[in-house]
């Protein structure tokens, strides 16, 4: 600041002190100084030019920059559209993925103590390997409370999720909930709408979620009302809590019933020992405790109690805490070590998102710079008319910033349009974080960065040209200018081809597994859970009526549904069993007609039959079990199980009753004598339509079971559900593949137009000398085909490696056949030619007079 200005300011300060007081004076002084600093004030040093030179950030100049930028955009409509649309797509993808990651990372943060809550889990040694369980014995709660109590604020024993039928008068719903110890509401910091968190202390009470309370009591006050759980236990509503959000591991918790009700009601406290890992244990560690230290402290809590029990000691159980913050993303254990889990998807999608965004940005820069070559002349003219460099720089920057911000706005629009669809595919309930400053900060910050980087080449490089050279036409971009662009095109196509191959393989794997012979017939097979005694006692009548009305061909009972076997038993003894083998096989208790209902195929021996009284101690094995037990002639072999001796009466063909991707496990079917059937299976008469059959089954069911809601599941639906996860991956992968191709094509288009631009004169001369359009087309397209071929060479081994290791996750998997790779490469080539041809044919068709006239 100049001397006289300082003097003036001092004088003004004295004046202000005398008129408005010292504090205001200081304030005004500071304000004046800020306003007089260079960029805010006019230049104090005058240039004695005839034409005044406005400051390069003068409002008038800014208005001018934007006007010119806008005119440029409108002038090249196709370019601008491609440019903006490409960048917007990339941004939209990044935003969607960002939202998804945000959602994944904020799971369970609803619970205020989420960083102090943990689940007690255990490692057990089974058959030489370490298995990790989240289930615990009943006795653990007491043990943790009394021996290790100082480490914990709360120790909560709970049942797993149960689905009993809740009823109030005539209203009955099957709801998912848990039996938990009274500290649970405090630990989970439930928001109580009615009643208090202490409600569970009364062993005959129940807490309901808001939505469940409404479905039972509408708007009436539910507190103190009576309800029944499974017709067995009467409980009083002691409180209503706000529904837990979908981003909570307890989201499905529709009710909480007291732990003591279950334990005393079933007499578990007398029946169960340390070997019955039927429950779960959650803890909140003490306020000053350290999660790792507590985890280490309780490591041997169970071992101390069971080391002298011969039944438990071989498993060498060790306890540890699995913190709530890690439940969702780090849920997988292998051999006793946490191996991540969903976090891998978070990383994978994060990387994909970053990559797509990067590709889009690079393209954006590519297209902008390719176009800016055209504008070298404009720069020359501007300079000779008197533009200074700072003005040209801000001119180019404002153009790229304008485009970037238009793209940002478009991306937000795109995201809000596609979010419902994305939620559907991803199985989430996400919303754009309009109110989250972080979202805006990231979005706008990123847009600024892209705009600045994309604009930097023309802004800094083009503006440095000497006007004389540019206008004389001696300016030429060097041959090397295209090299980085070519490298980018290769990278982009390598990614696209990899994604195409990946998508094809994921879909083929799904199809391959769907076509797997499952060994029984799913069509028209449905199952009804038998939860209450009413259903059990009404079963015979129901069966007879369904058979006599010809609605069903066969009805039977079984322990598990045909599509979800999974109960295993060990400790069986048979002839020739190797010493020390810890055997484990799937067991399914059934009634005699089960085989006929699901339509299995007997290979050797015979099916169960009511004609033979001895079948109640008969086993039917599947082929895998025969192999597992090493029988040569299985029929007639004796197996000792469940404390009695069974005789093998038949062998059934292998059936897919668990995951369709896994090998079939040895399975044993036996006639139920322990009251262990929980489902009735119904095979609908193929001559009756499904809806007709269903309504008549429902009517019959209601007749015999007036107090139980009618629930059913089709085996078909159940089976399809096993493919959801893979189908989700497939859908997302195909979305990304399409996007990657789109973005790569934009990049290619940019490069093609750049090259065509560079070679206009060459093409003109060739034409004059007699080159045909087709030979010119060949000349221009050849380079790009070579680029895509290089991309193929990179992508194919990469995809082979990646997809090969993905398929390793599945025992039952498709082969990687060569045609998939060939098809993907060919597809990419065709797309390339189509994209490039537009530019090359256009360039080849130009009248040589036009392209050569300039000199």
């Amino acid at each position, binding site marked *: 600041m100049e*001397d*006289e*200005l300082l*003097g003036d*300011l001092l004088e*003004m300060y004295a004046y202000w002190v005398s008129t408005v007081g010292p504090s205001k004076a200081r304030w005004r002084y500071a304000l004046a100084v800020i*306003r*007089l600093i260079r960029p805010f*004030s006019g230049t104090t040093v005058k240039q004695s030019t005839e034409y005044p030179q406005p400051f390069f950030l003068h409002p008038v100049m800014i208005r001018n920059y934007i006007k010119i930028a806008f005119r440029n955009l409108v002038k090249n409509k196709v370019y601008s559209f491609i440019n903006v649309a490409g960048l917007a797509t990339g941004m939209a993808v990044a935003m969607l993925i960002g939202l998804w990651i945000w959602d994944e990372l904020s799971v369970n943060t609803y619970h205020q103590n989420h960083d102090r809550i943990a689940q007690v889990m255990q490692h057990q040694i089974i058959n030489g390997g370490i298995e990790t369980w989240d289930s615990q014995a009943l006795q653990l709660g007491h043990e943790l409370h009394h021996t290790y109590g100082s480490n914990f604020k709360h120790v909560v024993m709970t049942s797993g999720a149960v689905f009993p039928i809740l009823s109030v008068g005539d209203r009955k719903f099957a709801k998912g909930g848990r039996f938990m110890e009274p500290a649970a509401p405090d630990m989970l910091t439930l928001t109580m709408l009615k009643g208090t968190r202490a409600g569970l202390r009364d062993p005959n009470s129940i807490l309901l979620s808001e939505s469940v309370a409404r479905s039972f009591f509408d708007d009436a006050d539910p507190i103190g009302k009576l309800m029944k759980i499974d017709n067995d236990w009467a409980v009083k509503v002691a409180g209503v809590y706000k529904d837990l959000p979908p981003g909570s591991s307890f989201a499905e918790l529709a009710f909480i019933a007291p732990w003591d009700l279950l334990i005393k009601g079933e007499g578990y406290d007398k029946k169960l020992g340390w070997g019955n890992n039927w429950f779960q244990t959650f803890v909140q560690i003490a306020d000053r405790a350290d999660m790792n230290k507590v985890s280490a402290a309780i490591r041997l809590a169970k071992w101390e109690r069971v080391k002298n029990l011969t039944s438990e000691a071989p498993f060498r159980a060790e306890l540890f805490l699995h913190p709530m913050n890690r439940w969702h993303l780090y849920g997988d254990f292998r051999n006793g070590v946490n191996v991540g889990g969903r976090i891998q998807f978070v990383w994978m999608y994060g990387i994909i998102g970053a990559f797509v965004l990067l590709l889009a940005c690079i393209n954006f820069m590519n297209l902008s710079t390719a176009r800016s070559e055209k504008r070298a002349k404009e720069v020359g003219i501007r300079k000779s008319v008197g533009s200074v460099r700072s003005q040209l720089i801000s001119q180019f920057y404002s153009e790229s910033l304008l485009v970037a911000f238009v793209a940002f706005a478009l991306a937000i629009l795109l995201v809000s349009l596609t979010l419902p669809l994305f939620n559907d595919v991803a199985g989430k309930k996400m919303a754009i974080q309009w109110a989250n400053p972080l979202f805006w900060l990231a979005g706008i910050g990123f847009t600024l960065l892209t705009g600045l980087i994309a604009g930097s080449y023309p802004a800094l490089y083009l503006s440095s040209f000497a006007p004389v050279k540019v206008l004389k036409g001696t300016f030429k971009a060097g041959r090397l200018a295209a090299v980085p662009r070519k490298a980018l095109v290769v990278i982009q196509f390598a990614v696209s081809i990899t994604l195409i191959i990946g998508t094809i393989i994921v879909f083929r794997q799904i199809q391959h597994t769907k076509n797997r012979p499952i060994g029984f017939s799913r069509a028209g097979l449905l199952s009804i859970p038998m939860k209450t005694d009413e259903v059990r006692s009404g079963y015979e009548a129901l069966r007879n009526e369904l058979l006599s009305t010809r609605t069903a061909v066969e009805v039977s009972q079984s322990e598990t549904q045909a599509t979800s076997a999974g109960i295993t038993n060990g400790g069986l003894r048979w002839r020739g069993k190797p010493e020390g083998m810890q055997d484990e096989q799937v067991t399914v208790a059934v009634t005699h007609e089960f085989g006929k209902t699901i339509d299995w195929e007997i290979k050797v021996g015979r099916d169960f039959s009511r004609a033979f009284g001895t079948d109640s101690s008969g086993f039917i094995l599947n082929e895998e079990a025969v192999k597992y037990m090493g029988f040569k002639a299985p029929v007639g072999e004796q197996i000792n199980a469940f404390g009695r001796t069974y005789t093998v009466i038949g062998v059934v063909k292998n059936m897919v009753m668990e995951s369709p991707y896994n090998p079939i496990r040895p399975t044993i079917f036996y006639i139920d004598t322990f009251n262990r059937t929980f489902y009735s299976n119904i095979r609908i008469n193929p001559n009756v339509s499904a809806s007709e059959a269903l309504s008549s089954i429902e009517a019959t069911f209601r007749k015999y079971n007036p107090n139980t809601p009618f629930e059913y599941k089709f085996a078909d639906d159940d089976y399809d559900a096993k493919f959801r996860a893979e189908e989700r991956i497939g859908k997302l992968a195909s979305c990304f593949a399409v996007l990657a191709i789109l973005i790569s094509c934009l990049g290619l288009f940019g490069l093609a137009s750049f090259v065509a631009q560079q070679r206009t004169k060459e093409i003109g001369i060739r034409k004059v000398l007699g080159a045909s359009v087709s030979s010119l087309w060949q000349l221009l397209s050849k380079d790009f085909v070579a680029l895509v071929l290089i991309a193929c060479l990179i992508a194919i081994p990469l995809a082979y490696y990646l997809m090969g290791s993905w398929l390793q996750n599945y025992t039952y998997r498709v082969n990687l056949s060569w045609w998939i790779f060939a098809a993907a490469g060919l597809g990419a080539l065709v797309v390339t030619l189509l994209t490039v041809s537009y530019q090359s044919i256009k360039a080849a068709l130009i009248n040589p007079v036009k392209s050569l006239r300039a000199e």
Partner: protein
Amino acid sequence: MKRAFLGELEEIVLLTVAALQELAYCASITQTIDQEMGRSISFPTVHTTLQRLEEKGFVASHMGGATAERGGRQKRLFTVTAAGQQALIESRQVRAHLWDQIPTPILQLWGA
């Protein structure tokens, strides 16, 4: 070329420069406007206005003597140039012309 336009604020500052004669420099002009017109005006505004007037050629400036109250720093003293005088006179004439067109009875009604 169109002649430079004289804005309202510029006119007031220019008039103040004319009124203060040899004593016209930025601080004194600000204080005079502040006192005489009862109009709160910030120092930087006056400063930029003076610069603009100088760009337009309505005032000229030269460095003047220092006084103790400003820490011995020099003053930039402003004087009205011929073009400035012309502009002020013209603007006054335009106003006078418009005043003349208001009928006398109405002026009397206003109490002017």
